[in-house]
């Protein structure tokens, strides 16, 4: 059975405040953002003056001004995970990566991250954007355990703020940039045992969430929100039915799309606020890095016997869940 040995995360330092978005004068205001999305500020790899002057109407210009790349964030997160696992990069036998905002479309992001870390073992991208944490866990759980190397490093990184048109009322309020990394082993016990994984998708709805290669992020907001809440609740319910979940002890982490959506979910499942971990209110939606970054940021708070349910949804449309048991 797979064990989660360690995690890492990385976020840029520049904040986009709600007041800043209000001053862009695109029909939004700070109060609306907090009421509808529940995000107070979010982090970006873009200079704030660049966003103010250009609104990132031409995202290819944004890439030139970006202060940090998705690769940089991924490497930083990976280094944290390696340090926490007390491992060197050359001990990694497989690196898989998810990145929905690459600076180059070839070679895959995994190769850029591997090059920066000094990893020379097999690496490739396993990609589904937002639900990557669940996909990677489910993908690796599918292997015959003896076919997996001793240590596997997974990285999910995204810089969606570089693909937002800041003339759009709500898009600029949603996204933040970030990366998360985690190290797994089927041969060594870690802090968290991977008890259950699930991944599925409905590609007939793949046009609902899109980042155009030569354009911006766009989505059918209402449809995606309804899908996200419904599907996340279903994912949690299945795990509640099949396993002994105690919301006074156990933790829920959802996809960090927005806080009001997460509140609907936790209210539906009657999860106490203290057992609902999130970071969206001050970081924004970091796509496939979101949920794992939450877990990484709270790693030291986990206690033996506790269970963690991660339920994530997103582009594809795809969704998945992970059940961890803390050892």
């Amino acid at each position: 059975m797979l064990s989660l040995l360690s995690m890492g995360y990385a976020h840029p330092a520049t904040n986009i405040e709600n007041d800043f978005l209000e001053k862009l004068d695109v029909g939004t205001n700070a109060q609306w953002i907090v009421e509808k999305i529940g995000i107070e500020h979010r982090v970006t790899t873009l200079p704030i003056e660049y966003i103010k002057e250009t609104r990132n109407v031409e995202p290819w210009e944004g890439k030139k001004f970006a202060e940090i790349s998705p690769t940089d964030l991924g490497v930083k997160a990976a280094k944290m995970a390696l340090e926490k696992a007390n491992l060197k990069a050359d001990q990694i036998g497989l690196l898989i990566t998810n990145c929905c905002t690459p600076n180059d479309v070839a070679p895959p992001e995994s190769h850029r991250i591997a090059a920066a870390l000094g990893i020379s073992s097999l690496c490739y991208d396993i990609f589904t954007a937002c639900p990557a944490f669940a996909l990677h866990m489910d993908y690796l759980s599918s292997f015959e355990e003896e076919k997996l190397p001793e240590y596997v490093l997974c990285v999910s990184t995204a810089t969606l703020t570089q693909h937002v048109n800041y003339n759009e009322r709500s898009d600029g309020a949603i996204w933040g940039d970030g990366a998360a990394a985690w190290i797994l082993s089927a041969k060594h016990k870690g802090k968290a045992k991977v008890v259950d994984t699930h991944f599925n998708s409905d590609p007939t709805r793949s046009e609902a969430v899109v980042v155009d290669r030569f354009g911006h992020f766009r989505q059918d907001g209402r449809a995606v929100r309804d899908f996200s809440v419904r599907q996340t609740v279903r994912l949690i319910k299945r795990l509640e039915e099949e396993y002994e979940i105690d919301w006074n002890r156990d933790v829920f982490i959802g996809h960090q799309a927005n806080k009001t959506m997460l509140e609907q979910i936790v209210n539906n499942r009657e999860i106490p606020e203290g057992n609902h971990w999130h970071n969206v209110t001050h970081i924004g939606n970091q796509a496939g890095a979101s949920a794992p970054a939450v877990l990484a940021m709270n790693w030291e708070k986990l206690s033996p016997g506790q269970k963690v349910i991660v339920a994530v949804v997103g582009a594809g449309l795809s969704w998945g869940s992970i059940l961890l048991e803390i050892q």
Partner: protein
Amino acid sequence: MLYILGAGFKPADTVLTNDRLSEMAGGFSAADIESLYGIQSRSTTLPISYLEETKGGNARKAFKVANSSPTDLALGSIDETLARAGISKEQIGLVIGDTATPTQITPSEGQRVAGKMGLKVPTYDLWMASGSFLAQLDALSSFKPSKLPEYVLGLSANAPTQSIDLRSGKTAALFGDGAASYVLSASHEGKLGVLRAFIDVKPSECDKLKISLYGSLSIQDDFVEAMVRPRAREALERLRGWFSSDISEGYLIGPSCDVVGTRALAKEFGFNSSRVLVNGDKFGDMLGTSVPSILAQYWSQLEKGRKIFIAQSGIALCHGGMVLQVIK
């Protein structure tokens, strides 16, 4: 064992010959390309008039004028794949995609294609550029049987000519556009069985050939001669170490950017020249599409009992190899 039950291929419709290319690009002749790489033409999704006028190199503009997208090409390969596998699309339980030239950076190529097929099944991309086919099959061969659905659809769709600047030198001649798809199963025997594979990567070289998100394809000038050719040879050495007695009766698939090198390898290692399977001479190197496209193109000619030796090197793939058994 993992089996390949069916494979299909759809190249882009427009053919760009060496003569036309050398007229537009300058700096090399048609004969130069053929003698260096063995490539006579390549398929492209771009109108020839666009290339004549602009010489390429601006993926943003190329995308707007392209006659078809990688997704369109992938969809064009599906019917042949399913017919050869003898299944309907409703029987597919998992779709794994690949592209190095997406029109959207989210969602994945597999999700775009599966969506247009009307499929509601787990779908994601496992991609490694030139190594994608090897990586996909190698991974699925390592899955627990209970974790694989009855039928898996794999696909690779690429349009690198949309990122090429014709003025970049002779390497502009290497690439072509096309898509291939394949049905895989661990529970039903198919025409081809995956015997063994290996993949070696060298991420430290990831700058030697890259496709920029917004810009053009950049490639080390001697990429084929200095990297692909010697490494494909190393790959074949390794495959020979596993199945040396089968070489003289087997088939060889080498890197599609180096048909000259592939034919030389075949001679050196003792392959019968009639069993060297290439299509790079006609279609160019289509990245992850190339290997499955060759299997698809030669599908009905593959003779039972023989082995197929696949020796590869390219973007994101230092070298890799796979040996397939022709079972039916």
